[in-house]
């Protein structure tokens, strides 16, 4: 599953640690989500989407494979 977390975060010039603190998760979890190694729970997926002002389906695309995986 492809997601736009890294793209949205870099657009806002945020660090992974800042995003992690805003979402209440660890920096390692943000790294894992961005790389596609971890699929977040539904509440966390909604929290991420809300944080960036997008809908969940805009943030996470189940039809696209993560590049390099």
């Amino acid at each position: 599953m492809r997601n736009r977390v890294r793209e949205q975060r870099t657009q806002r010039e945020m660090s992974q640690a800042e995003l992690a603190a805003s979402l209440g998760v660890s920096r390692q979890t943000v790294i894992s989500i961005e790389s596609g190694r971890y699929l977040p729970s539904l509440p966390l997926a909604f929290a991420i989407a809300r944080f960036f002002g997008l809908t969940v389906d805009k943030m996470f695309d189940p039809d696209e494979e993560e590049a390099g995986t």
Partner: protein
Amino acid sequence: MKTFIRPRLRKPLGIALAGTVFAAAWAMRGGNAWWLSVAIEVTVLVGAITFYVRAGDDNDEGALASSRADERQKALSLRSRALGWNFTVVTAFSGVTAGTALKASWSWPFLVILAVAGFGYLLGLSNYGVAEEEPADDAGPRHPAGSPAT
């Protein structure tokens, strides 16, 4: 009581407490090797301090050690525990089987471990809702019996 203890201290204190209880049990046992209880206590305290120091690390192990894990880290811990449970069950089953084949008297602890693991698994299924599963809602208002789709 848990809420009064800082998250980072909880697990190291648990380790220290468990180790102290075991060291006390060893001391109560008496005999010539009573002094080993002191060695056990020192080892446990060093281990608890090391655990406390590692709990400050900015990684998954540190987060788990300091009771500040997020959902991914909790899932990681859960999967690791499940793997540990699998190893325990396989070991216990091997012990029971070998003990049975050899007519050995030492196999009953393996049987107890196997029974406790099985009971814990069934308790988990019961607690987490499998036993309370509701019947399938096949005849809901949106899918009347004999609808054109059937």
